[in-house]
């Protein structure tokens, strides 16, 4: 995982060279600050994932961020009602780039068993999702699998993702205003 040996490097006596992209990606992947947006039983499983038995801090993730402004990864664990949808979207919008979203469990991914008028049928109707974790609720091992998939994305992601046309189109399709740090 987070070993410097994993990187493509040029090694010599007393020095090691790689590209800045890769070095930054490695650092990012091993210090992802998650924002747990937990509403129900998936949240309980996520608490177990954070706890000492499964121990998310092995991944440099023990620091839960309860403000979206200092979070890299939005972990949505649980049923999101339609009334809560705008709140979730607001939280996502407040996160600084780069940001990723992990959808934990059947409810967050598709509405799950709650096929009813009050429940949002999957959070991907309001915000883009990077990794879906199936299960009702998923076991901590599954959540860790999802987190590790996020790490893979983080490692491979270009530092310039937010400038890409593809990303702009994606956010436009969700009607989310993009703040890429450039002058408008």
């Amino acid at each position, binding site marked *: 995982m987070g070993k410097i040996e994993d990187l493509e490097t040029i090694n010599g006596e007393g020095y090691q060279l790689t590209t800045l992209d890769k070095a930054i990606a490695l650092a990012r992947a091993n210090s992802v600050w998650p924002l747990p947006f937990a509403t129900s039983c998936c949240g309980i499983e996520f608490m177990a994932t954070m706890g000492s038995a499964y121990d998310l801090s092995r991944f440099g993730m023990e620091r839960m961020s309860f403000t979206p402004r200092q979070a890299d990864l939005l972990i949505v664990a649980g049923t999101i009602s*339609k*009334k809560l949808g705008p709140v979730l979207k607001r939280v996502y919008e407040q996160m600084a780039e780069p940001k990723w979203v992990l959808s934990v469990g059947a409810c967050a991914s*598709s*509405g799950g068993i709650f*096929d*009813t*008028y*009050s*429940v949002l*049928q999957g959070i991907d109707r309001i915000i883009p999702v990077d990794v879906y974790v199936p299960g009702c609720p998923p076991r901590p091992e599954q959540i860790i699998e999802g987190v590790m998939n996020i790490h893979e994305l983080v490692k491979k992601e270009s530092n310039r993702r937010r400038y890409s046309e593809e990303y702009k189109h994606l956010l436009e399709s969700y009607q989310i205003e993009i703040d890429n740090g450039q002058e408008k």
Partner: protein
Amino acid sequence: MDKKNNHDYLSAIQERFGSEVLAHEESFGMLNVELTPSKIHDAIAWLQADQELSVNYLTNIAGVHYPEALGREFAVVYQLHSWKNNIRLRIKGYLPKENLHIASITDLFDGANWMERETYDFFGIQFDGHPDLRRILNMDDMDYFPMRKEYVLEDATREDKDDRFFGRNNIEQ
């Protein structure tokens, strides 16, 4: 002091409201009284004010939809409790779907405020005199009353129940 029982309550209500009592029954030990909807506010005010009956606590307000019952499609159900006599009773009023108006009892019980908003939210029953009758649980831009039986329970926008996703239908659509 003798505590009053269901029978005492029923005879007191009948004596006071006479023909306004449309029906009554006792189910699972709880007294049910159906009153003319326009008299319900007065009846609850009187039950609350009466020293002997002392109905001092509003447990719940709910709505029921009976689409087959013509002219009385919607019921408003008040569950009340007398701590003094340890008696619970249920007051019902039936409304026709064309005229879903009933007097608010927020002037009697402050707790009725949110209960009436909830009943409005799910059934569309208008509580006249309510200070702020708007949706409470559902999202504000919902355009129907979801507990009415003409609306399906399922979310209309759900896509993954399509049989194609379960291998039950081989026809390409």
